[in-house]
């Protein structure tokens, strides 16, 4: 296990290589805190949308009896398999002024590129498939007989989910949330196409690399790790503690 951890984290050695004095302010004054703020707030919003929209879909795929599930699974896999930059291009075209829907969004005042809305929408698109795949596996692992037993004891569907399905699936759901968070927060390829502004951390890393080289990239990498890690870590600790208490 130790050997595996060392191998897995070996690339972090790169942070210690001599690249010259680190430039903490990046390419422009205030760009680093702005990128952190954009990444954390908008990714949190995207994650909330992913959980709200993805959980019922994952539940349907885990518990539904219809043959149509195969079609929905294929649709979700397409979103997962799509190269990020290709997804970004497709999102730009589909939500751009060239389509009736994109034109309508513009008419009602929603900017579909280089805006917080574009940033969040792109993050939702790149991460929701991963969330659904992981959440579906977690929900499917809960024995259906336990849910039926709870229903026979008088519980409504929602109460069964809240009191039986969710507590038993929570470790897997925590993993699904973590995957979605990391996937959305670290997204670069699709976001740089749809939302160069406002710049999140990954785009800012690229901007810094272009404008000031590696000394401006290293601090942002450290900040990215410090901001990306706490949420999934905390979720896992809480889920595992509750699991152990049960």
């Amino acid at each position, binding site marked *: 296990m130790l050997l595996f951890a060392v191998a897995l984290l070996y690339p972090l050695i790169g942070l210690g290589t001599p690249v010259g004095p680190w430039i903490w302010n990046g390419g422009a004054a205030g760009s680093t805190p702005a990128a952190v703020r954009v990444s954390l707030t908008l990714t949190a919003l995207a994650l909330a949308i992913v959980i709200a929209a993805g959980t019922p879909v994952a539940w349907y795929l885990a518990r539904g009896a219809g043959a149509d599930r195969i079609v929905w699974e294929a649709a979700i896999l397409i979103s997962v398999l799509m190269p990020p930059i290709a997804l970004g291009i497709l999102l730009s075209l589909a939500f751009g002024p060239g389509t009736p829907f994109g034109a309508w969004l513009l008419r009602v005042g929603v900017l579909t590129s280089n805006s917080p809305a574009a940033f969040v929408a792109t993050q939702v698109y790149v991460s929701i498939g991963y969330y659904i795949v992981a959440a579906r596996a977690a929900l499917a692992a809960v*024995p259906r*007989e*336990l849910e*039926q*037993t*709870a*229903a*026979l*004891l*008088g*519980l*409504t569907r929602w109460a069964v989910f809240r*009191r*039986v399905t969710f*507590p*038993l699936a929570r470790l897997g759901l925590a993993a699904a949330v973590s995957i979605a968070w990391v996937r959305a927060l670290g997204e670069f390829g699709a976001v740089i196409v749809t939302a160069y502004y406002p710049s999140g951390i990954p785009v800012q890393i690229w901007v810094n690399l272009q404008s000031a080289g590696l000394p401006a990239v290293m601090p942002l990498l450290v900040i990215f790790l410090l901001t990306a890690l706490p949420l999934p870590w905390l979720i896992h600790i809480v889920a595992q503690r509750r*699991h152990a208490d*049960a």
Partner: protein
Amino acid sequence: MLEAHIVKARPDFTVDVRLSLARGAGLAIFGASGAGKSTVLSCIAGLETPEAGAIRFAGTTLYPPALALNRRPLAYLTQRDLLFPHLSVGANVCFGLPSPNLDGAAKWVDELKHRLGLGPIWSASAGRISGGQARRVALARMLARRPPLVLLDEPFVALDRPLIGDLTRALAEWQRTIGFTLIAVDHRREILERLCPRAIAIEHGRVVQEGAWSDLAAAPATPALARLLAPD
């Protein structure tokens, strides 16, 4: 009153059984393993949907159309205990109670706790108790809501003989005081006899005989039933 006609296809035969049972009465469904006994219970409980027939209990239509599980006025003890492993024994027993303090529920739960010997394990995790203990917890959880219809599928699996004696006496007593209608399924006559005065015998999904246990024993309708009824 329970009135049921259940038609349900299985891979090797079709279950086609009619039941009629007065409110508060007990009926045993007796037969060899794989005869279709559990299918009958499962259809009444709603875990399986019959292909035809009708099920009504105390003015409520259970099928057709299939009534939602949480609206069925019954409790079902399946062959597996199906305890909620993330909860304590006490939380499992009280799981279906809207409020543990409502309508004398606390006193009743306390009686279940003591009669079924659950006191020492009340705070233990349900995932960490023995098979025999789990069976008693499942029984207590089922009865905690004081259901009007109780379905028991091999209720005393994994329990020793003295405990079975205690539990059958307790169940008979509770049936008198609560007044629930009881249907019990097992392939062991000695278990069912203590719970229900009347029985129907099933073979390959069909009722082959119905009546008091003494009638069945005096003139079994089929050789297979005679073998099942014969003392060990």
